[in-house]
């Protein structure tokens, strides 16, 4: 469960990223956060991920006050939040299998469990046959699938995808959203997709929160009139 209450964030350079926003996302929900560049979407992700702290208000994720987390506790907290980025951010010198396994190694998963789960998620995202290749040998869509596999390897309760289809053509974008829907249903993971691609929202209508200039301008169940 994500509960954001009266959160404001202003960066040191004076940029007002978020102004007094509040929202609640229940476990197992599939939510889009849309808005133009500079609207505050990325800041919202950074607050949820523990990368930034709010100037005021509280960010509660699974009853943890993220803004008050001690520096040393942030890595452990992140293990319950999977994040997928537009530019995939895979470790270039590790194979597909190693990239996914790395997320489980850091939590000291037993070797057998690790191997089983990595194979399972690679199969789920449909890149099981690419286990031993390096990210550079994959297409953009395949790299994003690997990034998603890595993000869900530790069975996080929340998966945040920051512009996951930003570098993909419409067909591949559609496939990625279908994959995220599948994860939402099969793994019961709360999915939060940050995007400015309205077409995706139209084709896969879900609850949509619109942000502009740091304010929530709309919160539409089932995509509403978008």
């Amino acid at each position, binding site marked *: 469960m994500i509960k954001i209450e009266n959160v404001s964030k202003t960066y040191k350079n004076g940029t007002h990223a978020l102004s007094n926003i509040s929202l609640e996302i229940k476990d197992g929900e599939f939510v889009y956060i849309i808005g133009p560049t500079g609207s505050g979407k990325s800041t919202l992700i950074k607050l949820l991920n523990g990368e930034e702290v709010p100037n005021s208000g509280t960010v509660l994720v699974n009853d943890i006050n993220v803004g008050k987390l001690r520096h040393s506790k*942030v*890595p452990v907290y*992140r293990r319950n939040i999977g994040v997928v980025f537009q530019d995939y951010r895979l470790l*270039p*010198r590790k194979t597909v299998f190693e990239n996914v396994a*790395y*997320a489980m190694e*850091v939590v000291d998963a037993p070797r057998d469990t690790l191997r089983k789960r990595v194979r399972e998620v690679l199969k789920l995202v449909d890149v099981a046959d690419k286990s031993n290749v390096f990210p550079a040998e994959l297409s953009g869509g395949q790299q994003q699938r690997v990034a998603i596999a*890595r993000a869900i390897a530790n069975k996080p309760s929340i998966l945040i995808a920051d512009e996951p289809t930003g570098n993909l053509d419409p067909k591949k974008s559609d496939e990625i959203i279908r994959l995220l829907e599948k994860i939402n249903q099969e793994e019961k993971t709360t999915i939060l997709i940050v995007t400015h691609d309205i077409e995706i929202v139209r084709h896969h209508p879900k609850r949509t929160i619109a942000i502009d200039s740091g304010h929530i301008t709309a919160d539409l169940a089932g995509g509403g009139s978008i």
Partner: protein
Amino acid sequence: MFRRLGRHIKEGFLGVGRHFGMALSSSTAVAITLTLIGVFMVLTYNLVLTTNTIESSISLSALIDYDSEDQVNLQRIEGKIKEVNGVSSVTYHSKEDEFDFYVNSNTDPELQEFYEAYRDENPFRDAYIITISDGTMLQEVTRQVEAIPGVYQVYDGGANTYKLVDVLENIRLFGGILVVALAALAIYLVYNTIHITIDNRKDEIWIMRNVGAKNGYVRAPFLVEGIIIGLFGSIVPILIIGGLYYYLYNALQGTLFGTFALAAPFPFLYYLAAVLAGTGILVGFIGSYISVCKYLRIRR
């Protein structure tokens, strides 16, 4: 715990393999600076050995009063000299020995015959030849021996000897400073090279942090990489310096200019290898540690 350690070591080796170019350039930087350090260590060590040999050959002559030449007084004086701090050996020379030495030091038989005529009126004194353990104590030993009742005079070679001791001391000090300065330079050079290596991988560090790796977990493989780079960087200098020294020692038959003895290759080269490998490992470790910490500090 051991599984994790094994994983870090494996990751470290994989890191070196997958960033071979950068690892090679870092290792080369380590090798070059360690070669310089090694050469200066060999020179300094032999210099210290030579200066110690020169210093240990410096001796004092304590001349005895004519009225203290009886057995009881001589034993007392010898005992007192041995008690002086810094004295390493005391050898008795009778006035007859001194006379013989003086006569025999002249090669002209006529002159020797001339001196022999004075044997009964021997003007020499009984003496103790004193060697000292440390050249810097020369003045102090002289002063204390001179104060012993029955000692007529102590001959220490005068100002030239003091100057020699000073020069030897400065040579040693200079050698030591040079080795320390080179070691500092090595750390700086290696830190810079490893820093560039890790700078290229800051995204990798960010990703590691983002999937929930704790700082120690991110740092460990980089430290292993640093140690491997340092260790590999020390192998070439050890082989080059060890081989060259062994060859030169044998070619020069163990002496420099036919006078100064060089340090025997073994166990000296074993110690040198251990010091160079240890320095390489330490420098690699410190270089990696500082570089990784920089990227772990920035982000929350």
